[in-house]
């Protein structure tokens, strides 16, 4: 009180009730940069110079044609799952089980491809439809438990990831193990009619890519232009108001579970029929797309169409993980660490968006 103020004007952080969108993007960008800086620490602890790691990753992905194709390949599942998850998060249904839903899609695809005799032209469409339903149904279990009993869906969907993973392991070691694979743990290769075409010389299965892009547009329209989308937004933003208006919360939860699980199922069909052409170990089918897609959806702030850029960003990260594995002999687990860091920095920085830095008169 008695001390004279050092200066009459000073910088203050003050709450900003109505922050502009630009600040949101700026803060997110800074958070991503900070996360990469922090991940440098992990590289360093592992014994790889952070600078070497960054350079290797950038060169191996963005400045390399095979690298770019790899990015595109990773983009496909991420954009599919991510766009579905934006809807789920909007409706406050925290589906963390995309990993398992993807695997169920892959299982469904393999089941159709290997065991259901169909006219060649119908095989792939059937695989996609059944894959969508399988992923959606798997998510629905958690949705029903949430709607009926109030069981936390984060925990259930997460547990179902592990369950799906062991189910796949059981299938490829047991009843579905290939006759022609000489004891290896995978199924027989899919017949040609069940294999997705790829861009020449790459693993980019373009039909799924197009499906993914259509999905983002479709879900965006569903959200902003349809009656269901309106119900979804009301139920997500204020469940009490939804009840008051007679909007069924159960219906909304089921819808988003079906959409997000189904989209993950489609991604699983793409991975099985486009990349591997068989069902194999779950850690090779998915590589953690489900969790990374959480970041894709989070970054897109509830807008399906914005998952196109955000999925691209995370696809670069993913392809980078591959580069690190090959060039720097780092285990692929590094992706988990990076994803975790990114998410922590992103949600941690959220608070900063609500403040602005201003030069203010000192009250003295």
């Amino acid at each position: 009180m008695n001390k004279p103020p050092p200066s009459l004007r000073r910088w203050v952080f003050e709450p900003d009730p109505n922050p502009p969108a630009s600040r949101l993007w700026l803060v997110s960008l800074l958070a991503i940069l900070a996360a990469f800086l922090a991940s440098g620490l992990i590289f360093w602890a592992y014994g790889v110079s952070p600078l070497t790691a960054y350079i290797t990753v950038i060169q191996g992905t963005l400045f390399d044609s095979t690298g770019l194709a790899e990015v595109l390949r990773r983009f496909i599942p991420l954009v599919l799952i991510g766009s579905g998850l934006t809807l789920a998060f909007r409706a406050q249904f925290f589906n963390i089980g995309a990993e398992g839903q993807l695997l169920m899609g892959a299982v469904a695809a393999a089941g159709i491809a290997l065991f259901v005799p169909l006219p060649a032209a119908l095989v792939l469409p059937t695989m996609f439809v059944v894959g969508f339903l399988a992923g959606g149904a798997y998510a629905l279990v958690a949705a029903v438990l949430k709607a009926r009993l109030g069981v936390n869906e984060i925990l259930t969907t997460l547990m179902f990831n592990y369950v799906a993973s062991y189910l796949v392991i059981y299938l490829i070691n047991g009843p579905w193990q290939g006759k022609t694979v000489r004891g290896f743990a995978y199924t027989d290769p899919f017949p040609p009619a069940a294999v997705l075409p790829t861009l020449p010389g790459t693993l980019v299965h373009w039909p799924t890519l197009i499906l993914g892009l259509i999905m983002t547009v479709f879900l965006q329209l569903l959200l902003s232009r349809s009656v269901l989308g309106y119900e979804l937004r009301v139920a997500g933003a204020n469940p009490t108001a939804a009840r008051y208006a007679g909007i069924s919360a159960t219906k909304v939860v089921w819808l988003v579970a079906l959409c997000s699980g189904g989209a993950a199922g489609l991604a699983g069909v793409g991975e099985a029929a486009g990349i591997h052409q068989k069902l194999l170990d779950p850690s090779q089918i998915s590589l953690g797309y489900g969790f990374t897609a959480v970041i894709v959806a989070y970054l897109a702030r509830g807008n399906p169409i914005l998952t196109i850029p955000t999925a691209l960003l995370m696809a670069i990260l993913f392809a980078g993980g591959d580069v690190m594995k090959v060039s720097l002999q780092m285990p692929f687990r590094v992706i988990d660490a990076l994803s975790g860091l990114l998410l922590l920095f992103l949600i941690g920085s959220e608070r900063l968006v609500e403040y602005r830095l201003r030069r203010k008169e000192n009250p003295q």
Partner: protein
Amino acid sequence: MNELLSVLGQAVAFGTPILLAALGEVVAERAGVVNLGVEGMMALGALAAFATAQTTGNLLLGLLMGVLVGALAAAIHALVAVTLRANQFVSGLALTALGLGVSGLLGQHFVGSPLLEPLPGAEFRIGAVLLAIGVWGVLYLTQTGLILRSVGENPGAVDVMGISVVRVRWLAVLFGGAMAGLAGSYLSLSYRPAWVDGTTAGLGWIAVALTIFVGWHPVRAILGAFFFGLLYHLAFRLQGRVPSEFLLMLPYLLVVVVLSLAALRRQQGAAPEALGLPYKRGER
């Protein structure tokens, strides 16, 4: 008779890490903070303990490091979810990914070289039970416990008494991390004294589910943890008769079943009122 004793012994041995981690989660959640990062903190603690013990040859130092690293990992959650008031569920989930990723990465150097002289397990088991009783005593008989429980129920009521809600929550989360680290240390120094990626095998998730199942009560957690340990052990015994994948699936399915049962019994009514809600003065 001997058979039965051995089964119970195994159940306790397996239930101990679950109990330790669940006690930490009980304390954090009683202060109103959900931490889904238990699995990650446990993995980091396990690696830190193992790596220290392996390089220095000092098991107790390893144990200390395991606890410290667990608490350090929890500090990330406290910073993001308590101080910066981000979504607690997402933050914990990210912490699990980070913990599993970092431990998997840095643990590479330690794969395939087990400890020759592991820590004895009996002390851990007795210690865990005593800790559970101790946590109960602190929660229900002391001012510290009263403040902690009040923070989880109505942080505003604590704030007006001039007690920092953020500080109480930080300490509770740090304690939770230390306990997860201790659980991890038990795994890597005593139960299976070696480093393998994924050594925690979902035990952290079971600890989170158990916390809800036992109604956030530390003494009931003892019985709950040993019950889970028993189920694990029985599943282990069924090997050969049932495909092993189904047995490995079992704990995860159990978590879902347990959560559903808890919901059916309206157990969630016992949840601390402010659980999962960030606290900001003047907002309710």
